[in-house]
């Protein structure tokens, strides 16, 4: 049986691990390679690296991190942050990333999704979207608006419409990150993940807000997500990956429990 996935997201700035709270005031929490290895050994199903440096002259550092992780961690590895061109995506793939996440650059130039899908195959292109809850309007009928540049810039674009367009253009998976919930540990934005997951036929990963194992269970049931992304709750040692997976399995969800 196909299992649900536990994914950990490691934000990397200048080659070091960082975790943001509501996208401001980031603080260093360690070495990304060691952390990746620790999670792999503890049963994590997939890793996402997000490069929050994203200034082009620093990109080499990220490629080195990806390369080092790929040499010792044998689960799918997804990398995003600052991917603006197919060349960026290809560099990351060669360094060892399985999947490439596109975000802000795709909002600004949607053809990037088509180009990456053509070059890497749909299944390797993940559309990562940062979403803000707003008053429903003619421009944003779902009441969820796409924001970019780490949540700083509102785009006036409807999240549901963007998800559908992204999949149409070739995204093979969606990461749905709630800006409202991010870093709060109050739980995922369940209505949002459910809305998008039911609208598309590609897997949807719930992101932002996880604080307890119950939040993960909710995202995979009520939120209809195919996978859950965690960060703070494992980075700061509150929970172990294996412990979270056990809690999900105990709740009756199909999980990979042997590693």
């Amino acid at each position, binding site marked *: 049986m196909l299992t649900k996935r536990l994914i950990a997201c490691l934000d990397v700035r200048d080659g070091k691990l960082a975790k943001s709270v509501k996208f401001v005031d980031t603080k260093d929490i360690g070495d990304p390679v060691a952390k990746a290895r620790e999670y792999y050994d503890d049963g994590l199903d997939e890793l996402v690296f997000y490069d929050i440096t994203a200034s082009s002259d620093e990109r080499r550092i990220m490629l080195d991190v990806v390369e080092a992780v790929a*040499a010792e961690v*044998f689960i*799918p590895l997804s990398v995003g942050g600052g991917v603006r061109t197919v060349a960026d995506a290809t560099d990351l793939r060669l360094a060892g990333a399985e999947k490439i996440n596109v975000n802000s650059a795709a909002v600004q130039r949607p053809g990037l999704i088509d180009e990456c899908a053509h070059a890497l195959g749909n299944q390797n292109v993940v559309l990562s979207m940062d979403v803000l809850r707003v008053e429903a309007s003619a421009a944003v009928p779902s009441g969820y608006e796409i924001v970019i540049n780490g949540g700083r810039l509102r785009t006036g674009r409807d999240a549901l419409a963007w998800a559908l367009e992204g999949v149409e253009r070739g995204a093979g998976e969606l990461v749905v990150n709630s800006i409202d919930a991010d870093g709060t540990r109050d739980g995922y934005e369940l209505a949002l993940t459910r809305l998008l997951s039911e609208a598309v036929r590609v*897997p949807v990963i719930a992101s932002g807000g996880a604080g307890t194992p119950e939040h993960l269970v909710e995202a995979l049931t009520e939120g209809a997500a195919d996978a859950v992304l965690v960060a703070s709750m494992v980075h700061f040692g509150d929970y172990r990956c294996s412990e979270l997976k056990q809690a999900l399995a105990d709740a009756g969800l199909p999980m990979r429990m042997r590693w």
Partner: protein
Amino acid sequence: MPETVIVDYDAGNLRSVQRACAEVGLAAEISADPARLRRADRIIFPGVGQAGSAMATLNRTGLADALRQRLGEGVPVLGICLGLQISLDHSEEGDTPTLSLVAGETRRFHFADPTLKVPHMGWNTLSLRQPHPVLKDLHEDDAFYFVHSYYTVPQDPAVVLAEATYEQPFCCALGKDNYVGVQFHTEKSGRAGLALLARFAAWDGVFKGAAGEASRAH
């Protein structure tokens, strides 16, 4: 010095496969050179991407012929994902004639349940259908990482080594003589996947399954 070649035909990131081989002590060279392939004594035939363009590259470069030759000479060959799918006669993807290493075809998933996601992406367990040296010591809870929208339907059910289930059971590992193919990405399947690669690295290419016996009789 035994030489393992990972066939490079512009079909995805082969370095993941190479790294996983290194992890289990198998030094493997990535090569797009048919002459190099003809000297290989162990071959890994991976791949992601589209069947049509993959076949065009394999035929144009002469890699397809070199692969068939080495396979005929008894060299152990491991197909992974697209490398498995194009080992059959035909793929529904782009209506493409494929390598005919094993009789059968590759079809697209069609699900009765409209909410099922495509591709079949994530970790899934296997149901063993017959023993094979490369799948030895598999535990029923070992899960492997899959990403695919097409699946293989071998003509002879006796080549099926294992099935996975995504709404319906489908063939996810097949073996015929010195060829073994897996649908999942064994290089990204944690320790279970590495163990499979290690067993392939140690395999002499002999498989006495029902299909192997039948083919030797001809």
